[in-house]
């Protein structure tokens, strides 16, 4: 495939929105080119016969360990909030949000 044929600037913008990345026009142009060449390169995997091959999600084949249900001390409030760019009282603060994907139970008006 020729350059620029795999991904267009509009799709790059769409991915940037999904990724919550504000990009300049120059960045969009550069990323369009980069992604296009990388996607072209990784397309070589299509040559592999994958029939019957189990996906490898973990590098070593151990089972999930379990921890005992024990409570240990919470971070003190001040430590939990110490790194917050904005806090208000005992909360992390963000710009006003409209109810979102978490939906019921997680939203309350003060």
């Amino acid at each position, binding site marked *: 495939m020729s350059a620029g044929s795999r991904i267009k600037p509009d799709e790059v913008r769409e991915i940037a929105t999904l990724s919550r990345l504000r990009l300049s026009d120059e960045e969009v142009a550069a990323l369009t080119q980069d992604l296009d060449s990388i996607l072209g390169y990784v397309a070589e995997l299509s040559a592999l016969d994958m029939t019957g091959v189990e996906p490898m*999600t973990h590098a070593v084949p151990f089972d999930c360990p379990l*921890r005992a249900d024990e*409570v240990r001390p919470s971070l003190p409030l001040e430590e*939990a909030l110490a790194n917050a760019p904005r806090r208000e009282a005992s909360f992390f603060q963000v710009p006003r949000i409209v*109810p979102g994907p*978490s939906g019921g*139970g997680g939203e309350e008006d003060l």
Partner: protein
Amino acid sequence: MTAPASPVHPKYEVVIGLEVHVQLATRSKIFSWSSTAFGAEPNTQTDPVCLGMPGTLPVLNAAAVEAAVRLGLAAGCAIRPRCRFSRKHYFYPDLPKGFQISQFDEPICEGGAIKFRLHGEPRSVRLTRIHMEEDAGKNLHAAAGVSFVDYNRAGVPLCEIVSEPDVRSAEEAAEYVRAIRSLVRYLGIGDGNMEEGSLRCDANVSLRLHGAKEYGTKAEIKNMNSFKNVRDAVEYEVKRQASLLDKGERVVQETRLWDASRGVTQSMRSKEQAHDYKYFPEPDLPPLVVDEAYLARVRASQPELPEDRFARYTGPDGLSPQDAGVLVADRETAAYFDAVVAAGAPGKKAANWVINEVLARVTDPRELGEAALPVPAVALAELVSLIEGGTLSGKLGKDVFAKMWAGKRSAGDIVKAEGLTQVSDAGALEEACRRVVAAHPDEAARFKDSPKLMGFFVGAVMKETGGKANPKAVNEILRRLLG
């Protein structure tokens, strides 16, 4: 059952699938060590893991796994010998990592069904799956253009129970959720409190013409935080969709929030519609293995479940389905009833006392499990045996019960202290009956034509004896004297 059945819509069949989130009552969070206790000061129950701090890793809580397995076994699900966690991505302030650790293509439980009764008719709603996941934090919306985030709830373990589209009415939806609450409480894996959000329900509602094979377009309803909300919201949504379809308009696939104060569902109109969760296997957690030995251990310690109890109570010569339904609805009620019977009370009598007297005096049936309950099961059994043995009349029994409840005294003590023993002595009763008949010659004369006057005479004898007379004996004597 109190309310009448939702009327079948004349034109459309209502199709409802439900997603119920149950918070599991573990002490610590699903992937980290801070407490899950409800109601703490904001952000005082956190740790670096549940705050999604860089470099932190999840470690799975054994108690959360056991709870999920218990729920799955109780619902007759197949438990996957190897299940997997996946990451579900979305950006939202209550989600500290930008993804929720959940299960996607290989959940811990598949299949199964929730069984319950609707107006006494057995219902079975098939389950697609039950999976484990972590809860998000809470967003609080302040007035001045800002919102606040509290991560105390972030990482509380959840089971998400996804049903097949088997539910056919708003009322059934509410009963289904109630049945899940009952199951969760029986199993001791959660408190199923809808108001506090430890039991949450989303409903996918669609309509189709009766007899149609294809499903209609569904709307997802969120934010219903009581059984009544579930019923009202779905009821509203059915009406809304029916009127759209009647007008030849289309139902839009979207998420709608129930506004309980206005009694309407409203479109969220947010970008949420275009969600792409980009699921992929959680690299930080290897596959979870649940082997036969583990299942056997959990199975061996499963409590008796509501539907099994129902079958036991309604067996030959058993309770009415109505009474059995009331008794099995809560684990504490059923356990109390079982204890009254175990202490010697006949089943039907015990059921009447529990339903009509005990349950009438508590605000939450779970109080029947408390040690401070004024009338413990053994005390009620004693009262029932005094009545059965003829020492107390039924009417006196109720008075005694009221005194037991008010003063935490035993039935025997009250009977002794107040000299309430029923008079069954034939001589004394004969005396009293003769006095009453003699005092009412007109009524005695009319008795042959109007036998209903028996009630009048019995009442008079009871008055004469201060209520202590054995009504059965009084009846016999009066019949003889008046006959």
